């Protein structure tokens, strides 16, 4: 190992050589391991990986994402999930009922601009991204999200919004009395359960931006909590 755990590394930086397991964010050349992104080195025993500090959302099967319908096609919807390419939602992954595609216009179900919670089903080698809203074991109810608002943050900051064992997100939901769906793609859906709804959602959006901006700080959850309490006396 040539780097310490949590060290910032840059593309092409030599991380290790010899008997090591090179994981994501790295590549090997002549039994030497190099970083391929700007990120934090994560060394665990003989395993090394690099957690990117910036970059586009890279969809992985199983990810929960929040997307916006971009285009309605004959048998599919194209959904923007902030990946380099739009994701494909096919009718067979969207509707349980049978549909006569010749007779029906799919915008009857979802139209341009609709916000959806979906799960990434498959990403093939040419980056054809398939998503589905019919997954049984999804952590939240999939499908169209109505009302509320959507906040986009940097996808690499998503783990911070969730917090250790969900501490951050649980606090936000409790203190703001909002339903929050955090997409792995950095798109977050917020809907207040109680009045004043618009104010609650606006405060949630502000809190999420603060998390994005101050993601490197420790004790962020408590700091946010006290600020939310102070600002939510309506």
């Amino acid at each position, binding site marked *: 190992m040539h780097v310490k755990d949590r*060290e*910032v590394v*840059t*593309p*092409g*930086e*030599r991380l290790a050589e010899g008997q090591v397991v090179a994981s994501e964010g790295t*590549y090997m*050349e002549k039994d030497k391991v*190099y970083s*391929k*992104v*700007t990120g934090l080195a994560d060394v665990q025993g003989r395993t090394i990986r690099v957690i*990117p*500090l*910036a*970059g*586009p959302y890279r969809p992985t099967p199983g990810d929960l994402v929040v997307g916006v319908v971009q285009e309605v096609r004959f048998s599919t919807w194209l959904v923007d999930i902030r990946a*380099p*390419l*739009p994701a494909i939602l096919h009718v067979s992954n969207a509707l349980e009922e049978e549909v006569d595609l010749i007779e029906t216009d799919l915008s009857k179900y979802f139209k341009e601009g609709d916000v959806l919670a979906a799960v990434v089903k498959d990403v093939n*080698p*040419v*980056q054809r991204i398939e998503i589905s809203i019919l997954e049984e074991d999804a952590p939240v109810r999939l499908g169209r999200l109505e009302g509320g608002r959507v906040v986009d943050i940097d996808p*690499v900051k998503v783990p911070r919004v969730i917090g250790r064992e969900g501490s951050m997100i649980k606090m936000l939901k409790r203190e703001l009395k909002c339903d929050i769906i955090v997409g792995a793609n950095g798109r977050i859906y917020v809907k207040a359960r109680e009045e004043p709804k618009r104010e609650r959602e606006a405060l949630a959006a502000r809190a999420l931006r603060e998390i994005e901006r101050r993601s*490197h700080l420790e004790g962020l959850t408590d700091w946010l909590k006290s600020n939310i309490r102070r600002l939510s006396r309506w």
Partner: protein
Amino acid sequence: MPEEEPERLISEDGLRLDGRKPDEMRPLKIKAGVLKRADGSAYVELGANRIVAAVYGPRELHPRHKQKPDRAVVRFRYNMAPFSVDERKRPGPDRRSIEISKLSKEALEPAIFTEYYPRTAIDIFVEVLQADAGTRCAGITAASVALADAGIEMRDLVAACAAGKVDGHIVLDPMYYEDGYGEADVPLAMMPKEGEITLLQMDGDMTPEEFKKAVKLAKKGCKIVYKEQRRALKRKYGEE
């Protein structure tokens, strides 16, 4: 450019017009992440050069027929501001900037894992705000930092630096007058990790020996640039 050619570009004690030694580079300053709207960006100062680079993407490429099914398309635009030189530069692409755009793209592409982003485009924009010779190299240097700042997966950073022949001496990183009145200019870009050269040009007259010497010197310059590029990226995240 001064009205008249300076009598000599290298003094008797071997120093250059700006007091540098032949193998000395101009002061270099790099900053990563200077633009808010771009996915990645960088600012470079090399001597009096002032250059901003912005990277967008990988993003969907339109028109569709230009997409490559197995990799990303890299597009590069080098542009000089009208106020970047003494005489107003007519805005817009010209023969020179089209050439620089093409070879800068080719200098950076080998470093990018383009196969990870099929059917997309990675757009790189380099704006020269003030030119002081060696802008193509400083542009590549800036663009490479901007790519890394955008989180795009790369084999290595690409560092670039020029060498030249001035008054019969081989010098590192020629400045404005040396470029204008010197005998030759050798810009070079490389991936320092393996020493792979991705750009090499020569403009002017040199003997093969001089050329070899110039390449060696430019490579040395690239190593210095490379160190500074890494430091700029680490500095953005609070290290160093």
